[in-house]
């Protein structure tokens, strides 16, 4: 079946510059805030010389810990766990290098930046605890988070002696896999333009969840939720970094309130590395025990991480392979002098899949077994711990179809056997599994006299294609062409289920499409009911008093007449007619996940060791594909995101200072076009009707999961070298 496909409806606005991102907003009387950050990693501010800065032209005010703008409340909900809970400029304590110490507000951005450079801070420095390499040697138990499973040990059976089970295995592998800190590095930095009027805040701020952002701002600023309006129709990349509220938005809002004029705060590229969140480093010890025939008997997955946010064991191991003995544990390194860790694209899953899928490759080598055959020997039909059946799983077909597309049968199991000139060629594969789900959410569908209909939800489009999916799903539900559907999103005043429910977090967990599209169907049905009622009861309707009126293809049909809804609403002079609808709760009887099989070809220079990506195929089972173009775009971007971790990305923290030595885009390497290749993406397209009527599961992060392992496994196949510490750089491959 051909998958539906449609160009992005927001593409023209983005290409022409008509799309306004947060920092594109300029309001009358607006002032500019520039942040100043600490240059020590641990200690105290002794004094701040603001004299020259205050005397500099255009400076309106300078906020420091001595005159912190008012933040009466605390970050609520998940932000209280996954974002920075210490308020900006709270006190004179410095907890990490690059921490906010001042906000300079001036008439122009140049004046603010210039004055900021004149501030002299005197510190009393203490040796920072910034080295994860040191800290991971003495980890601690993680905190217990009410209502969250992160950090909870998992054992199967409850009294498992995993070391004994491993010792009793016929074959075992045990290795440690290290992943460095990683930064979101989205194209659009965190930025906010805040304006108050009569005690009510309007804030233009890029966010994944407008409703959550409003809830968090209201709580910290000590105002009613109804007094905060978040506007965020376009977001230039987020990756979890814009799921919660960070200092730039808080400072813009608080300074604007204090000064009584709009304030814009834009984070610099360097500041993004420290004043907003990142993915914490982790070190995973993974042991697999197996029979000689490949059946896995025991899995030990022990992780040490800076933060509880990344729990690779919990996230990964229970959903990949069958095993009678399982032991999963997380330890943390608390109180480090490092910036705040938060969620980042496939949190836990990216690191966990690197470890588990590398270890499976190592086990396949040890067993002399094909890596796909080993995976099929341990195929899960229901979840490993609870035994909950999967709703719809075609991972086996992903393996088969991917192997055929990629030419897996041509792979030599012998490392280094294939060369092309001066390049060693290697093939590797991995599995990607991403939990899928949806939260009940509310959508409003409204018919308008001009023949268009709006489909509105307080979700977000951070480049994912949500604008387009909403138009396509609205078109399908209302039986009209998609150009007659006007989506509305990225606004906290649009519908959500309600304060505190999971759907306030908007576009997170690759669940926006699976969450919003079923609610569109429900809301459309409600709205059609209202429209039919309107047609038969409204003064001026050609169908007034008619019976058995029905809606079909954008028209109301009855009494031998057909009236288009735009014409109807024009004749009845009643403006808009619509309704809200809320999607049903999820059937808890199943486990839901998306799957992919990744296949990667690399080349390694025989002289100088540069690893280069040359081919990548992925076959994806993510339920119904609602827009083939944006789905492909999401998987391609997700795969490259994962390969970037394999090849380049590493926040390099100086243990002695806590300074990130590569906190800029020249030194923090991201892949450029020359590093990539066309990613061959194939969708199986089995609608998951147990998940929702639209049958769509999560996509974006799925590409990221497992990509680094496919690359590392290909590197092994090319060179015989097993690299267990990311990124895989040429110095690690020089013999």
């Amino acid at each position, binding site marked *: 079946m051909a998958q539906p496909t449609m160009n992005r409806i927001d593409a023209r606005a983005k290409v022409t510059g008509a799309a306004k991102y947060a920092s594109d907003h300029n309001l009358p009387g607006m002032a500019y805030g520039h942040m100043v950050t600490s*240059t020590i990693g641990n200690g105290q501010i002794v004094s701040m010389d603001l004299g020259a800065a205050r005397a500099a032209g255009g400076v309106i005010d300078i906020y420091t810990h001595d005159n912190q703008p008012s933040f009466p409340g605390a970050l609520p909900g998940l932000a209280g766990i996954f974002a920075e809970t210490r308020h900006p400029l709270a006190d004179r304590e410095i907890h990490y290098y690059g921490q906010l110490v001042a906000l300079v507000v001036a008439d122009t951005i140049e004046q603010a930046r210039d004055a900021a450079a004149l501030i002299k801070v005197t510190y009393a420095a203490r040796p920072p605890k910034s080295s994860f390499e040191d800290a991971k040697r003495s980890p601690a138990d993680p905190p217990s988070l009410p209502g969250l499973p992160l950090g909870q040990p998992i054992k199967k059976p409850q009294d498992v002696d995993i070391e004994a089970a491993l010792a009793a295995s016929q074959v075992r592998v045990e290795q440690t896999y290290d992943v460095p800190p990683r930064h979101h590095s989205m194209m659009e930095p965190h930025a906010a333009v805040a304006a108050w009027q009569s005690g009510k805040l309007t804030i233009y701020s890029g966010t994944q969840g407008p409703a959550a952002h409003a809830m968090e701002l209201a709580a910290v600023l000590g105002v009613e939720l109804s007094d905060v309006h978040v506007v965020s129709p376009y977001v230039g990349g987020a990756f979890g970094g814009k799921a919660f509220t960070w200092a730039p938005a808080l400072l813009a809002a608080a300074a604007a309130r204090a000064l009584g004029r709009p304030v814009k705060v834009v984070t610099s590229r360097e500041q993004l590395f420290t004043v907003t969140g990142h993915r914490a480093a982790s070190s995973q010890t993974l042991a697999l025990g197996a029979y000689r025939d490949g059946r896995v008997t025991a899995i030990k997955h022990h992780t040490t991480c800076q933060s509880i946010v990344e729990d690779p064991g919990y996230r990964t191991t229970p959903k990949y392979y069958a095993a009678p003995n399982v032991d999963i544990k997380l330890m943390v390194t608390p109180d480090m002098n490092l910036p705040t860790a938060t969620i980042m694209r496939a949190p836990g899953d990216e690191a966990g899949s690197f470890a588990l899928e590398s270890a499976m490759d190592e086990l396949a080598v040890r067993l002399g077994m094909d890596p796909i055959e080993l995976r099929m020997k341990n195929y899960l039909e229901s979840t490993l711990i609870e035994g909950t059946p999967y709703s719809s799983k075609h991972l086996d077909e992903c393996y088969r179809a991917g192997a055929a597309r990629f030419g897996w049968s041509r792979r030599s199991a012998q490392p280094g056997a294939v060369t092309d000139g001066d390049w060693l060629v290697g093939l590797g594969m991995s599995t990607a599994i991403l939990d899928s789900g949806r939260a009940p959410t509310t959508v409003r569908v409204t018919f308008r006299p001009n023949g268009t209909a709006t489909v509105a939800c307080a979700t977000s489009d951070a480049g994912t294609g949500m604008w387009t999916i909403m138009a396509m799903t609205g078109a399908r539900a209302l039986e009209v062409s998609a150009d007659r559907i006007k989506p509305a999103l990225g606004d906290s005043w649009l519908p959500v289920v309600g304060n505190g429910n999971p759907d306030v977090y908007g576009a997170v967990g690759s669940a926006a499409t699976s969450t919003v599209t079923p609610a569109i169907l429900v809301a459309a049905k409600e709205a059609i009911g209202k429209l039919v009622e309107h047609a038969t009861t409204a003064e001026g309707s050609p169908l007034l008093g008619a019976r058995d009126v029905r809606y079909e293809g954008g028209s109301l049909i009855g009494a031998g007449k057909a009236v288009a809804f735009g014409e109807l609403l024009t004749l009845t002079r009643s403006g808009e007619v619509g309704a809200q609808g809320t999607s049903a709760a999820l059937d808890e009887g199943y486990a839901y996940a998306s799957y992919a099989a990744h296949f990667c070809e690399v080349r390694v220079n025989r002289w*100088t060791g*540069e690893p280069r990506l040359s081919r990548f195929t992925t076959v994806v089972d993510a339920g119904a594909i609602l827009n083939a173009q944006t789905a492909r775009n999401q998987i391609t971007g997700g795969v490259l995101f994962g390969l970037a971790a394999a090849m380049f990305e590493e926040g390099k923290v100086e243990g*002695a200072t806590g300074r990130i*030595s590569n906190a800029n885009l020249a030194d923090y*390497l991201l892949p450029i076009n020359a590093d990539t290749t066309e990613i061959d993406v194939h969708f199986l397209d089995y609608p998951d009707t147990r998940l929702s009527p639209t049958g769509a599961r999560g996509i974006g992060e799925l590409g990221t999961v497992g990509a680094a392992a496919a690359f590392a496994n290909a590197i092994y196949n090319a060179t015989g070298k097993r690299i267990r510490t990311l990124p895989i750089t040429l*110095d690690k491959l020089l013999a």
Partner: protein
Amino acid sequence: MRPYTFAAARSVSEALEQARDGSAYLAGGTTLVDLMKLEVISPAHVVDITAVPLRGIRADAVGLSIGAMECMADVAGHDLVAGPYPMLAEALRQSASPQIRNMATIGGNLLQRTRCGYFRDPHTTCNKRSPGSGCSAIDGHNRSHAILGTSDACVATHPSDLAVALTALDARLSLRGAGGERSLRLADFYRLPAGTPHLENELRPGELITGVTVPALPWARRSTYVKVRDRQSYEFALASVAVAVNVRGGVIGEARVAAGGVGTKPWRLPAVEQALKGRPMQAATFEAAAAHATDGARPLSRNAFKPALLRRTIVRALVHLAG
């Protein structure tokens, strides 16, 4: 960025008249503006020389001459460069990005400052930026730093690819200053850091590079520039080599070898050249010669891989020329 005064010159003499203590010439601006924004350098006076007509790419029996204000992209694509001197064109094409190559000039390329992250961050100590303050790189993140020509005061690499190829080709610089014109071998132009890493070259105050000349070397047609880096484009070298060989009857008559990404200045390797001379153009020769490349190399805490990488880069370049 700190306040500065600005003047635009239309000729070399106007530029020289404008030069003064604490002034800087602005050509493509791809280094100067960057460093001014970072407040690594804060010139009191900026002299815009973009209209100064130091242009032209010419060749005669003596060699090739390139005006200092030619941009990298134009030089890389010029027939008088790409055919006779492949290593020059390849070095330029593997530098920076297309946008930067369209802006950056040849003179400015040779004067670009190191990419050492500590030099570029005024909140750290750096003897090159702030003489006597100390070197953060020696015990810091020094994976990309130099192993040749280093001192206890500085381990920063020279970043230019072009300068490596020009050093292999024995290029000369034409300079003009208040005292008139002079010419210097590029190899003699750059200084080693020793105790004064802030003094990077022999340029006198106010002096301007007006052009580069490359002595004719017909066998440089068989030359290449191999640049090894983590990313495939838009990144500085971990190691690079410019190699030319004059092979007759399967035997190397003469060779030119220079390295980048490993030295505190573009690093000519005469011992490698000598070891190639008179030997057969084959792998055993290359490996034996490359072994001389790292005589006296001093690896740092995080770049112990560089000596081996440099030797292998030389072998790779020679294998490429043999193929």
